[in-house]
């Protein structure tokens, strides 16, 4: 079933269970199977990747599991893919070449 999972009330991202195309509607469910909201994907989002469920400003913390998993390095609009091209770790990032390779292989528009 095509859906996104939203893990905690603090979260500003939800995780895709299947690949979603650009302009496809993301159905975001809670872990207790409640439909939280529907968001239009503004870009392609691969399975197990994250969509922004709110507008995020540069420097904002990214929350998943109700915890900080990184920080936005540019503004991220609701519906956009949240990944290595717009988020930095607070401890250690992927080495640059791996980071670039992820962006290239996933055809992320930077």
């Amino acid at each position, binding site marked *: 079933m095509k859906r996104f999972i939203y893990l905690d009330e603090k979260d500003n991202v939800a995780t895709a269970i299947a690949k979603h195309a650009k302009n496809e509607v993301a159905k975001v469910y809670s872990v207790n199977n409640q439909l939280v909201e529907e968001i239009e994907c503004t870009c392609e989002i691969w399975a197990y990747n994250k969509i922004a469920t709110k507008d995020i400003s540069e420097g904002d913390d990214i929350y998943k599991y109700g915890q900080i998993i990184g920080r936005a390095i540019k503004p991220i609009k609701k519906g956009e893919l949240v990944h290595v091209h717009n988020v930095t770790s607070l401890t250690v990032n*992927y080495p640059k070449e791996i980071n670039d390779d992820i962006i290239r292989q996933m055809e992320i528009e930077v």
Partner: protein
Amino acid sequence: MKFNGYKRHDGSVGIRNKTLIIATDECCEGIVQNIAKASEEAVVLTNYMTCMLGGNEETYNQLVAVSKNPNVANVIIVAMGCGSIDPNTLKSDIGEGKSVEIIVAQKSKGTRNSIQEGQEILKRFRTEADAMAKEECDMSSLIVGIKCGGSDTSSGLAANPAVGEVSDRIIKQGGITIGGELFELIGCEESLSKRSSKEVSEKINRLIDNEKRRYSVEGVETETMSIGNGIGGLTTIEEKSLGALYKFGSENVVDVLEINHNGVDKPKKSGLYLSEATMLCGGANVNFASFGAQLILWTTASAGVSNPLVPVITVSGNESVINDDIDVDASGIINGKTTLNEVADNIIDKIEKTCNGEKTSIEGLGTVTLTLYQKDRRTESFLNIRNCK
């Protein structure tokens, strides 16, 4: 939750009633394996590391601690007779309250006689164990180890949060849960510091730093993230580690249990503990046993893991790997067929059944050897490892 368990002299409660057969020296492995053939309730623990004590005190301390585990009814110690781990000291360190017999192969006039003598003791010990009465107990008697293995993205979405919810419920009912794998908590330090006292937080950071020292060599970066992780949607090390941390629930961390040459720490009151239990499967089983755990919750996206002493309940959220190794299917959280709370209910139900004697999916089958994973003091000294006490 109620279950009938074996009350031990120290107040702990066993959910199994095994006879532990220890080979203090690696050369006794053949003898202990042959003795164990006389009963399905026999569990072998061999010290593969060495027959010497100096530098290997951590291994010795674990032999003592596993013997004290509540799932152990009685203990047979087998020594060759030429090693420096004294079986009499081991017996006295195990203490009163459990029957302990010693066989020294050289004194028993060799291998065949030792096996025969051992099997006679084992039969007598099984009669003793079978006569032990069970008493009604509840969740407050439980110490549960929590571990993951063969994880993928489904783990952080389904099996880990479900087990985390179960950890919280166990603690609310007065029980104890213990996590380990400190190396896999790199990136969780800040999150953990909000859930622990300053003292405990410093301990966590120091022990994680020790793990970094053990797994890194100068000039080589510690491997934490792969390109596969990235394409699989893991953006940062925090996201990966926090997904693993999820299985420990939301309670504060009471303390970190250490295993070293000074001894093996024991949890003292209800709550969530972290520990030095290794990320290696066989080794972690022994580590959890040495903390006194009667049961292990295991989240996975691959096959099950089991051991003969501490039953393992396997939980998976990956639909494609659900087979008869898996005790609790958590994939409904992902595909929308069940909720996290329903999966947590199913895990609690399985805990109750397991505590009442029902076997877990692969209990008694395809078990891993109980592996004594050792932090050798010589290597630790070379790596400049600092213990907390």
